[in-house]
């Protein structure tokens, strides 16, 4: 499971995230919504261990990220919004590198690589250098890399950026099956209301670094007291005029 307790992040004088507390149990997909600069990516990067919080604690699968980073990160899969990869490695080599980094046994790593390269339609490109891949292919390769060590926690920033409709559907199906069958906790940051509505079990809306609303779609509907409730309406209402500067 993923747990954030009173997490705050300052960028010099700017407060990007303030006193954020979220808990995502095993097998749940949690959608993290917010306008640009609300603190979504900062939160995601803190959970992924790519950024240290100014205060508060983050734990993954019961391991405190600050105190036991190695254990916490060994059960984590992270998919960032921009596909920065080692351009001079091939797709296959990148997965081999990831397998060693996460100590996946060689035989299992070979099997998983083949399986994931096939699923993400990169098998024919496995020996090409990544610098020749398109944006969408790089994004799919990052996903393959994140799924290779079979993580128990998955953190995803804008999962559909750069994917075509077929790729997007494939990714949604994979995330659903990971949560339902393997009880993986998934934290997804997105701007897309329809994606959050279709994919997520619970939704949190962040505005100006503060969690403004949280619950299932049904709970949010009840809280508004209206049958004509729309997630988009609530989002706009909670975040109107609240667009922040984002991480510097």
């Amino acid at each position, binding site marked *: 499971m993923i747990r954030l307790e009173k997490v705050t992040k300052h*960028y*010099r004088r700017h407060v990007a995230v303030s006193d954020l507390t979220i808990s995502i149990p095993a097998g749940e997909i949690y959608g993290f919504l*917010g306008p*640009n*600069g*609300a*603190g*979504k*990516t*900062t939160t*995601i*990067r803190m959970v*992924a*261990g*790519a*950024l*240290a919080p100014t205060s508060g604690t983050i734990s993954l699968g019961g391991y405190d990220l600050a105190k036991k*980073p*190695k*254990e916490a*990160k*060994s059960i*984590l899969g*992270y998919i*960032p*919004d*921009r596909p*920065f*990869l*080692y351009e*001079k*490695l*091939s797709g*296959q*080599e990148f997965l*081999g*590198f*990831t*397998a*060693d*980094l*996460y*100590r996946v046994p060689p035989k299992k790593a070979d099997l998983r690589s083949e399986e994931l390269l096939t699923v993400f339609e990169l098998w024919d490109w496995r*020996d*090409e*250098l990544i*610098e*020749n891949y398109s944006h969408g292919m790089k994004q799919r390769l990052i996903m393959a*890399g994140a799924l290779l060590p079979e993580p128990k926690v998955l953190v995803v*920033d*804008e999962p559909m950026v750069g994917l075509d409709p077929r790729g997007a559907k494939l990714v949604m199906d994979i995330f659903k099956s990971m949560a339902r069958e393997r009880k993986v906790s998934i934290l997804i*940051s997105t701007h897309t209301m329809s994606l959050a509505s279709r994919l997520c079990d619970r939704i949190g809306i962040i505005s100006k670094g503060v969690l403004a609303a949280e619950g299932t779609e049904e709970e949010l509907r009840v809280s508004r007291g209206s049958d004509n409730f729309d997630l988009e309406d609530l989002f706009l209402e909670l975040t109107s005029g609240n667009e922040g500067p*984002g*991480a*510097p």
Partner: protein
Amino acid sequence: MREFLTLLKPYRLGLKNYLRDPGPGGKVKLMSLSAFTLSLWVALFLLSVRMIRSFYQVEGFGDILAQKTFGLLWLTGVALLIFSSFITSLSSFYLSRDLSLLMGAPVDRESVFWARSAQSVLASAWMPTAFLLPVFLAYGYAFSAPLHYYALLPLTAVPVMLIACFVSQTVVILLVNVLPARRTRDVLSLLGLFSFVALYLVFRLLRPEQLVNPDNFRTVAGYLASLQTPTSPMLPTTWAADLLWPLLGGQGSQFSMVYLGLIWVMALVSAMLSSYAAHFLYWQGYNKSQEGAGRQRAGGLLNIAASAFRLIRRPEYRAIAVKDFKIFFRDHTQWSQLFLLGALMIIYLYNFSVLNLKRYPLHAFFLENTIAFLNVGLVGLVTATLSLRFAFTSISAEGYSYWIIRSSPLSVRDFMREKLAFWLTPIMLVALFLTFLTNRFLDAAPVMAATAFGLTLLLTPGLCCLGVGLGSRFPRFETENLAQVPTGYGGLIHMVSSSLSLLLIIGLSSWPVVRYLRIRRGMAVWGLKDGILIPLFSLLVLVLAWLLVTRPMRLGREALEVYDEGNAGKEQGGPALGSLDGDRGPVPGGG
């Protein structure tokens, strides 16, 4: 003109914003960098004045020697500028990330070209200007030149630099229309590097120090023939030298403004050529550069060589080692640095091979052994350079992909240790090889050779730790060109720290060594003082060597553990001039 100025705005404003707010600790860094640059200029100026005056002590030839060197300086400066401009104009015209934005904007493409051209000239000209200006000023000072020498200097230098830059730009435009841009950059980088190494080797192997020793030449004719430099009356650099030399050599009557006119006309002609090339070929070449270099497959010999890393037992160490090895040999900008390393080693060994200490038989023993000892310091400097070039940059080489390491179970400590192990092995081998061969050339006593060997073994890990440690303390993950990484603030700190550490350790080791030599030659006798001080000094050396290993690694680890990409640009001491051309990519995240 308005469009041209608008297009230069991001560059101008970026510089203004950086100077206004260079980030935490940035002002201190800026001031220390300025102080360092100023001291370098003063040192260069004083050294040049001394060199020019020493020329004049060679009776009868001093004037010719100073004149030839003056011409050679112009030629070297322009040659460097041409190669530097090749690379910067290729990046500015075809590879910058913001070009797609500009090409889609309602501005004239030729305005884009000229704005980029101006940026490219600034980015490539500042380095030769910074290094040559104090030398040319030293010429004026040493020769008590009239005031109009100083006025004419910029009036001559600016068009000469423009000629070099416009010629490079025209060649780049033509080349991109033949080759894909990315391949052109590789070819030009290699060409530039080969030429630099060749120039350096030729210059060194010609033994220019012999030129100030006319005893080596039987006749005046032979001496003069040896001074032939590759100057031609058709080159603008020759015109520049011929224009200014009469003001230095006191031959004011031979001064002719015709050369200045020629230089300005040539600058105008090269600008026109560049403009024509841009008008007809720039857009076409830009389109071609977007097509990429085609599919490249991984495999072959490199994979076989990389399989040697299977011997590493810890899989995460193996992962980083294999990745670094493959990336190093697939990236032209990285492996081509090996040529520089080769040149450095050849020159170093060559200098020792021609050092004929037997000419001084009375002092040969002391000279050979003292030089063998000081050689450790020189090998240390070579090691420090290698550490800066390879170990220091190895952290920044992760680039934007550093998020992969950051979010993986690999700790920062292990990551740094792996980088250290990867570079320490080859750097140690080079250092020991240089020490061994130079000791052979010097015919040093076995005890001295062993001491030199021991000190090299002791110093090299420390210098490599300094590289990895400071590379982690001052990472530049945002840079596109790894060759720029050692030129930043962190690189400066690395070289200063390495030199000071070497000075301290060699200084402390020198006392026991000198004592040993004196006792061995019967000039002193072994006493109680030696029994106490020699072990004490040795212990101090060991403590210092240990601190050199542990402190920088700790400093680097602490910094990298809290590394914050969002504030990275400002933390690293700000952009170098060459990197203000819009090449800097975005920082991941920012939602």
